[in-house]
């Protein structure tokens, strides 16, 4: 009996990972193939096989296609994937840590915090020696981390119980404040205006492989830290006191999760601007589909988040082609109603 249960369990998990993986692959294929110039999936395989894996494939592919895939679509899809994965896993971790299905880098103000760092870097033309291109993400990450610390500190001052609504409210107040701060900087800037605005709206277009290189190390460090803490996140989603009684070193683990979340958010914001609601919607849907266990929720959210943002980007650039919508518009159009639904559901549960 027990064995059968375990097997069923494993099978379900297997199915979950398979679904998420297939979704991600399909999204990637669509993202690469669809556009003003369509590239057939078979060609994509050939191009990738030849260019990346250096397989001895007879190269009868159109060189223009090869160029489009390798220099425009693939880096764009990969970047969107990393950004989506970063935001989704960070969102899932914040939600678990704060026992709050409405928490995400955007609603907590972390994204805005990261933006301030990024805008400051661009505005002041900062560059740390030896770090070079990583100056931008490092600044974003630092300001992101400072923001979440300040938001949580204020929320605790307002309400020791740290209720869901209090944290969200504090996050939104900080978002507004930091947003105003960014506007101020934009008003003061002259030459860099276009760069800042384009970046603020959130986009993964025309970034190229350089940006993939920027986000990659932070993505690996951040998600590894979170996945290493998935059991602790499970425990902490029953409250910090409970987690401590079970044996979790709450102070240390909480700090790790906050730092990792900030690394992921900061790096994502640094390369793509503020893209909202991915970290809210994806973990929520993943939890609904496959349960709240963080050991699986985090990797699954990562995959579905990546796929989701790739598709969102696809919509953003095709829906009113040739004009491109900022990707943040698409995610907000989907995310805000979901946010409202979760809020209403929680209220209903609270009353019942």
């Amino acid at each position, binding site marked *: 009996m027990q064995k059968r249960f375990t097997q069923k369990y494993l099978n379900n998990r297997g199915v979950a990972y398979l679904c998420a993986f297939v979704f991600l692959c399909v999204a990637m294929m669509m993202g690469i193939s669809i556009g003003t110039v369509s590239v057939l999936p078979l060609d994509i395989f050939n191009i990738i096989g030849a260019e990346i894996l250096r397989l001895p494939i007879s190269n009868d592919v159109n060189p223009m296609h090869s160029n489009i895939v390798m220099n425009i679509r693939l880096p764009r899809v990969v970047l969107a994937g990393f950004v989506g994965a970063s935001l989704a896993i960070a969102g899932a971790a914040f939600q678990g840590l704060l026992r709050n*299905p409405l928490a995400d880098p955007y609603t907590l103000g972390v994204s805005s915090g990261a933006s301030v760092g990024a805008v400051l870097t661009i505005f002041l033309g900062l560059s740390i020696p030896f770090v070079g291109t990583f100056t931008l993400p490092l600044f974003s990450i630092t300001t992101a981390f400072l923001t979440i610390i300040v938001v949580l500190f204020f929320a605790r001052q307002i309400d020791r119980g740290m209720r869901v609504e209090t944290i969200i409210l504090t996050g939104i107040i900080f978002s507004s404040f930091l947003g105003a701060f960014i506007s101020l900087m934009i008003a003061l800037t002259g030459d860099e205006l276009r760069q800042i605005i384009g970046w603020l709206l959130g986009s993964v277009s025309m970034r190229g492989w350089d940006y993939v290189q920027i986000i990659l190390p932070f993505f690996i460090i951040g998600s590894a830290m979170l996945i290493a803490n998935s*059991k602790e996140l499970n425990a902490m989603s029953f409250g910090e006191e409970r987690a401590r009684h079970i*044996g979790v070193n709450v102070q240390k683990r909480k700090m790790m999760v906050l730092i990792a979340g900030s690394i992921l958010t900061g790096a994502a914001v640094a390369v793509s601007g503020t893209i909202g609601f991915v970290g809210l919607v994806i973990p929520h849907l993943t*939890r609904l589909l496959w*349960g*709240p*266990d963080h050991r699986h929720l985090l990797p699954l959210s990562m995959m579905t988040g990546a796929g989701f943002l790739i598709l969102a980007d696809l919509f953003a650039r095709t829906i009113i082609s040739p004009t491109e919508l900022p990707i943040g518009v698409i995610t907000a159009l989907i995310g805000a109603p979901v946010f409202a639904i979760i809020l209403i559901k929680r209220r209903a549960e609270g009353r019942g």
Partner: protein
Amino acid sequence: MMYSLRQINGGYGGKQVIHDVSFEVEKGQLFGILGPNGSGKSTVLKMLSGLIPVTSGEVYLKDQPVQNYNTKEIAKIVAVLPQHAEHSFSYTVKEIVSLGRYAHQSGWFQTWSEDDEEVVQQSMKQTGVQHFAHKNITELSGGERQRVFLAQSLAQEPEILLLDEPTNHLDLSYQKELLDMLKEWTEKKGLTVLSIFHDLNLAGLYCDQIVLLNDGKIVSNDKPNEVLQEARIIEVYETEVKKHGHPKVPAPQVVLIPEEKWQNEEIITPAILMVNEEYITLQSAQPLRVMSSGVVGSGIGWYQTFVNRHVDKSYNCDDFYEEMVDFLIEKGFEPSETVGMMTAVYTDDVIYGFYEMDLFSVLIVVTAGVGNAVDASMASKHKEVVTPGTINSWIFVNGHLSEEAFIQAMMTATEAKAKVLMDLEVRDKETGTVATGTSTDSILVAATQSGEKIDFAGTVTPLGKIIGKGIYECTQKAIHKSRKRKKETDDD
């Protein structure tokens, strides 16, 4: 010694809540912490689990200062059952219970061993949650959730279990179930349980040792019976209580006394006595404090209805209690509020007398037959045979009797009854000596518990005098009457 607290002081945010608290908890004890709200119970518990540091003094866990342990090490020894566990996401029961194994797993790639699985299954079985192992926590009732978190605590394989008012949100049956379970584990597995109690009576019923706190200081640290002294509880909780024994087990119980005393206006008089062929009954508008030896409703309690039922001499029922309850129900009486007696005497032969004094009045009701009279001093010569009672005496007092007065009233009545039999020369057929009563006499003393406080009812006290006189007169008349009837029926 599992826990040892040595003069600890401390509190939250600079405010000192706990002052010089010292106590020790031994292995296998069910240890209770009591105290009014704000007395520092929860603070002490949080200090024990290391959640709040002490500002001075030492907490020793298994002979080691508690700060020498890290969080995981503490979790392997001490489990804490929360009063009200948060659950923000819909984890399954098994996922929640499995989290209890956290402290026992180590390394970056914490693998789930067979041992872990075994312990989790065992914990779920012990708490009776294995049936819904794959259900979501959100689908469960409050009591079931509590058991899930108890299973989680057990999965930690702790030596000590800390609980903060574990029965707070539970139904009566779950409260008993949980505490019975904890008690069993302390006895059988040597688990040490330390719990805060809100309910003094539950603590009195289950604890081996109790610490009573007030204003962050220890008021008493002793066995339940010593801690739960009436005067102490009144002082600490600043409320009127009365202590008495538990009716079934030797445990102290403390009951509240409501401020508003209901005035019992009604006076028990012969006017409310009703007699028909089957039974004599008296129905009071309000419950009376009663001490009796009836078939139903015997002992001490509060009763409203009193029934003396006529049964045939040949009445022979193995389970006369059941039969009597059935009879009461059939006649429309509520057995839990009724004192019921049986007599072979005809109900018409009842004799009653009403005695009015300045401060109190007494109604005495007697049915008497002396068919199986016995001399108590020679009773060893009799075989034990149960036959319907023959002298049933009811004494209703419109007054407020002390417990002593109840007992003295019974003694006085018994002596007066014996004197009647002596004066009438009723003989014990077996021994030929003068009888003192019959083999199955019953007595009932009931009081309205309002009006004059009567502390004593010995033979020469005002109440004793009336009871002695009344019982003598009524019993004498009653025996005459039943003898006359016996003669008539014999003549027929």
